[in-house]
């Protein structure tokens, strides 16, 4: 996205957006003016973060092979989402992140959320879903070495990210319904979403348990064979 030609302005924006604009939005949100409108702030923050990431990705030179593999992973996530009670998006983006880096994981998670929502229902929550799944991948990319070595750690990370994902979406539900955050509503949202939370955690666990090794071997093989 080379809309802004000047390199200095681009670099400045890269620092200003995460460290100035987003905290400023949060501060404004807590001020009296937007008392009941935390939803605007949270949506804007989510949109800004996604924009920032895609702008960074656009400028980098990414090899064609890498991009094709990310596209394949996204397609696998979308196909997997059609299987009932089986939500492989988190697991696949974690595996992609471990073997291909955090950026690939972020792209897989967020774009899979975006594309599959064309089948499952697009809405304002898409931005949050993209961010939640993308960040799961990004963080897994940073933790790649320990996650690759210890399977137990990987399983814990998978189950944990399923639970966190569900909680983030509950926060979003409350914000959307109420405008601002409300403890009782959040509690009732968490309780009513409990079956989904369990399904997320368990399916992440099962998928990573069964597929992490063979999936990883395939990616590793492709990496060695073709030098991605």
């Amino acid at each position, binding site marked *: 996205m080379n809309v802004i030609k000047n390199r200095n302005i681009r670099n400045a924006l890269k620092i200003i957006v995460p460290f100035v604009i987003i905290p400023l939005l949060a501060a404004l949100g807590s001020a009296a003016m937007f008392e009941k409108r935390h939803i605007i702030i949270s949506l804007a923050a989510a949109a800004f973060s996604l924009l920032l990431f895609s702008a960074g*990705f*656009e400028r980098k030179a990414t090899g*064609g092979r890498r*991009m094709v593999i990310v596209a*394949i992973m996204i397609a696998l996530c979308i196909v997997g989402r059609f299987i009932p009670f089986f939500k492989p998006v988190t697991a696949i983006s974690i595996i992609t992140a471990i073997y291909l880096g955090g950026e690939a994981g972020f792209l897989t998670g967020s774009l899979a959320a975006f594309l599959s929502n064309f089948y499952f*229902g*697009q809405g304002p929550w898409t931005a949050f879903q993209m961010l939640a799944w993308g960040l799961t991948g990004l963080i897994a990319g940073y933790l790649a070495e320990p996650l690759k070595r210890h399977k137990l750690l990987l399983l814990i990370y998978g189950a944990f990210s399923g639970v966190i994902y569900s909680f983030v979406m509950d926060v979003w539900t409350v914000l959307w319904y109420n*405008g601002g955050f409300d403890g009782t509503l959040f509690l009732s949202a968490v309780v009513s979403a409990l079956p989904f939370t369990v399904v997320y955690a368990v399916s992440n666990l099962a998928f990573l348990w069964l597929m992490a090794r063979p999936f990883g071997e395939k990616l590793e093989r492709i990496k060695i064979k073709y030098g991605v």
Partner: protein
Amino acid sequence: MGAIDRINPVAAAVYFLAAAGIAMFSMNPVILSLSLSGAVCFFFIKSRSTGIKSHLYSLLLFIVMALINPFVNHNGVTVLFIMNDNPITLEALIYGIAASAMIISVLYWFRSFTEIMTSDKLLYIFGRLSPKLALILSMALRFVPMFGNQLYKTEQAQKAAGLYKEDNIADTFKGKTDIFSIIITWGLENGIITADSMTARGYGCARRTSFSLFRWRKGDFIFLAITAALFAASLWGTMAADFAYYPAIAFSEADYRTVTGFTSYGLLVFLPSIFEIKEALRWKYLKSKI
């Protein structure tokens, strides 16, 4: 194909964001009822084929969400009855109805939006913003049916070779896992070939451009201008319309500013429905002349 399908995708996306955006951030009952009726009306005009079941589901969701609020929120002065020492108030009930009207109307806006945004339009918009993301998206969209096709072929081949059976759950599970594993390997190898052929044809030599049939016509600019004007007017008008749910329902007197805001929002939400109906009438008229 209707009138809205032929509008430039960027203009259509701006329209939906404007219509749904005001509804999302306003809790004014007038705005919300306008938004709900406009969104449902347009969806009905646009897709008559959708079964009644999904609308019933929306209605159920509406009722459930409207009833949640009075049970968790006990603000408000008009007590309807007392349950478990907690007052159930009229204000909380009305707030619940308003909040669920907002959510359901935004759901309907996005459903119409998804119906209109076909993948070529999506790639047109993304090709403008970020060519690389558009490339990944278009490849992923292409891989989904390709995987489905290959899945079928692999299953048939495995069956013919006598390696796949579905006699019991354990066999089915093992068979499916094997096929999934085959598909992944095949997909990765196939993807590398795709990537190599892309490089051979000069991918990465220059900024990627994308071809699309969409052009900016005069009608698109007019549509965009009308949308922008109505959006600005309704934003300006609704800012002045104060509406408080707690502790008691209170709202500001209607003046010319709020009336302008409500009217322009009403026009905004019914704009595509008007277009569709106009188009249908014109078609009927032209047919009757033949």
